[in-house]
């Protein structure tokens, strides 16, 4: 059976719900536990670093050089705002896909991808800046927990970007008709999930001193 014809045949399920959508929600549920573990570890070791760089306090290096707190709130706030707006853009893309408006679908999904790319770029710059400032993965507890938590989130965002980019290319080639909009809805659910995880990470890591 071809992929196209598989979509055309209704399949009854005991719940009356699409199995693919139930599967992505189950996956998202398991991911909640994964990120809860990482956030728990970050919070447990918060403020326990013995040597700098520190996230919110100025610090002095062994050579006597003084440094400012390492976190860059304005840059990350911009990335956060764009990630939040990308959630809005992807629901607009989904609405466009559901009504068969290919132009709206491509435009809004393109905007979502742009915001996601900015966010990942912001995170790459931030990591580069931190390493340049002397914060390696094993420098202190802050470095280990920060890179693990935000690195795993960034990886999820990157996977979501690849997923959305694939759908954007399919839509560009006219292979995402309204009856297949669930393909985008499932990807959008994953994208919203990485957004809600960041909604928790942003205040915990960047704003709580």
């Amino acid at each position, binding site marked *: 059976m071809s992929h196209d014809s598989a*979509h*055309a*045949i*209704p*399949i*009854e*399920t005991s*719940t*009356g*719900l*699409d*199995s693919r*959508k*139930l599967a992505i*929600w*189950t996956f*998202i*549920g*398991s991911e*909640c*536990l994964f*990120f*809860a*573990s990482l*956030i*728990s*570890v970050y*919070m*447990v070791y918060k403020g326990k670093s013995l040597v700098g760089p520190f996230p919110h306090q100025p610090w002095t290096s062994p050579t006597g050089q003084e440094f400012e707190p390492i976190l860059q*709130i304005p840059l990350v*706030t911009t990335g*956060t*705002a764009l990630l*939040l*707006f990308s*959630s*809005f853009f*992807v*629901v*607009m893309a989904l*609405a466009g896909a559901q009504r068969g408006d290919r132009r709206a679908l491509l435009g809004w999904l393109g905007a979502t991808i742009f915001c996601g790319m900015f966010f990942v770029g912001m995170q790459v710059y931030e990591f580069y800046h931190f390493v340049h400032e002397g914060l390696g993965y094993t420098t202190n507890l802050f470095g280990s927990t920060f890179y693990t938590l935000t690195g795993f989130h960034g990886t999820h965002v990157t996977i979501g970007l690849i997923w959305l980019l694939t759908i954007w290319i399919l839509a560009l080639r006219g292979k995402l008709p*309204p*009856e*297949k*909009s*669930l393909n985008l*809805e499932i990807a959008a*659910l994953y994208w*919203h*999930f990485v*957004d*809600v995880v960041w*909604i*928790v990470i*942003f*205040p915990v890591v*960047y*704003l*709580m*001193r």
Partner: protein
Amino acid sequence: MNDQAATAHQKPHPGTAGYIKIALTLFVLTALEVGAYEVARRGAPPGLAAVVAPLIIQILLVLSAAKFALVAMFYMHLKQDSKIFSSVFVFPIIIAAIILFALIALFWYLGIQHP
């Protein structure tokens, strides 16, 4: 199952105007988060800082929870979709919250026992 069958359990989605209102609300809540952080950090203006600084963690938790709920309910369509999806999402979140508080309590206790 085709997509029409998949949406059989859905109520109508918020629509463009609703999505825009939610996006603006999320933006305002984020601005409030960063604003509260800056007021607490700078200690200025003094009157506002005296109120915000002692409650900064609670303020950030409430704002973050509100943003989380808005995205989950309206953008992820949990408010309109089948309750089964909500259950599959909310149950792990409850377990996650228990893990979070249990670990924090455990390490707090260990910190007291072995300072």
